[in-house]
């Protein structure tokens, strides 16, 4: 059966989740991202919507779904800020697409790969954000690279803990 399929490995490893997980997990991530910085102050070095986008993109292995998920999460984040709507949207759209595209070709169960992927995609998201804001829009934005670095590290650590927990929510045959 695996031999005759057009892409047997991909067919086997596509994860499915209950509808509530698709709806609630991103929502909880958005709410926590909006609420936790009030508790942690300036030490809120993480981006939960990005982590969730990467998780679902890797798990579903569908670039279209990853693109849509990233776009929705980014636009939501933009809507809660005082910045232009679309900056985070574009950044996370690209991240979702890339994560899903990479997920087709690699083993997403490996923790090291998850760690590295989250770190790199977080940096990429920050870079796209700054590029759009300063180059594309021509707006003034002061930017500190080490904050983005801390955020990438934070995202990687959170992903390391969160991904196994979310794996338990998938539908198993």
């Amino acid at each position, binding site marked *: 059966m695996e031999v005759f399929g057009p892409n047997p490995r991909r067919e086997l490893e596509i994860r499915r989740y209950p509808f509530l997980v698709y709806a609630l997990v991103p*929502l*909880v991530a*958005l*709410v926590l*991202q*909006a*609420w*936790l*910085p*009030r*508790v942690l*102050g*300036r030490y*809120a070095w993480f981006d939960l*919507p990005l982590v969730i986008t990467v998780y679902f993109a890797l798990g579903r292995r569908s*670039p*279209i779904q990853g*693109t*849509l998920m990233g*776009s929705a999460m980014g*636009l*939501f*984040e933009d*809507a*809660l*800020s*005082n*910045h*232009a*709507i*679309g*900056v*985070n*949207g*574009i950044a996370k*759209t*690209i991240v979702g*697409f890339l994560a899903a*595209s990479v997920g087709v070709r690699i083993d997403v169960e490996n923790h090291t790969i998850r760690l590295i992927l989250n770190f790199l995609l977080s940096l990429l998201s920050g870079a796209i*954000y700054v590029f*759009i804001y300063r180059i*594309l*829009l*021509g*707006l*003034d*934005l*002061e*930017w*500190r690279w080490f*904050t983005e670095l801390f955020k990438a590290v934070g995202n990687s650590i959170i992903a390391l803990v969160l991904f196994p927990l979310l794996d338990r929510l998938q539908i198993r045959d």
Partner: protein
Amino acid sequence: MDSFFIRYRNLLVLLVILVAQIIGLAVQVRRTDAGHVSLDPQDGPGVRLIRLWANAVVTPPERMMHSSKLGLGNLWQNYLDLRHVSEQNQDLQKTVDRLRLEQAEMLEDARQGQRLQALLDFQQKYVYKTLAAQAIGSSGSDQSRVFYLDKGSAEGLQRDMAVITPDGIVGKVREVFPHTAQVLVINDQTSGAGVILETTRIRGILRGNAAGQPQIVGLMADQRIQPGEKVFTAGGDQIFPRGLPVGVVEKVVRDPERDSFVDVIIKPAAHIDRLDEVLVITQALPTMPPQQQQDLATSEALKGGEAATIKDQKKASEIMAERLPGLTEPNAPAAQPAAAAGTQPGQAQGQAAPAAPATPATPKLLHAQHADRFSPGSAQEAPPETRTTEPKSRFDAKPLPGPRELPGPRMPQKREQTAPAGTTKGQPAPKAGHPAGQTATPRRNP
């Protein structure tokens, strides 16, 4: 053709979504007259609708989490963590006693301050109508330093209202939704507030930097600006009232883009990183408590009484001056040496008029064009029988006041004290230094 779309559908979907978002971004930015690109400070209807939806989705869970956090905190503090409460209670009782004494002293000082303030006609607005609100969420991004309040337009909030705490200013209301409001904090890069340094009186604009620190930007390098100096709102931005604490100067750094300019980093007075309760200034008109209004009214009444007294005195002086129009030489020198008059002003009858300084310059008698026996200086030449004759009318017997007898502001009181026998009430009476017996020898003007 179909195979093309199927083969590249992932990329096509990505491109479509990216292009749509780029177009959306282009709609939101605008180019100013000076050529700079900036975000539209007021969101368009579409953008506002998106923000409203996002807010409506995120706010209820945030509100619930905030309430549960408060509930858990209260449960812990009020029921579980009660160690050392008795000792704390005793310490607090002592503190309360001490504060009561201090309060009594400060209350008196405050009343005095209000009276002085009213007398100096300072109409500064130190008391406002405020609305307490809870901070329930943030943007979640360190590039966008905004947070959300649990009150909105339904509770009377509007855009550009100032948000403060008792420690200092926090920010301004940027966007208002029905039951929530977005507050732009002073350490955001797009914020702006007019501030003034306490001692050097240097004014500047406060905004945030990348590190989330509020800073005064675009100041000329000045050695007088030192760490520790307090910063207050300047009141010129139409948002923050004047005189509210902002923070203290933490350090002064060179502007990386302009050599002769510095950026003054401020340590905010309010704990803007961890805010729970804030006050929104909903009305900038003074609304003092009844006791303060009463104190203010009292001071106003006192001020009005003093002003009325001074006005009456001036009016009496003017009336008396009008009654003696011919005795004042318009071109006469302003002051006459006291020795020339032969008497010392204010010495006669031992009464020194308190209002003597308000008395005009010593008048000189003018030459009469058609002298008669009533003319000043002709009394000695009059026949003796004439001098003893009773006056025909009350005007005839009017003893002319001496050259130093111009009425002062307290003239009516003096008249009662010095009115000689035979003078009629209502007439100008001989004044201090010129009793009735001396008025027969007025001094002529040379």
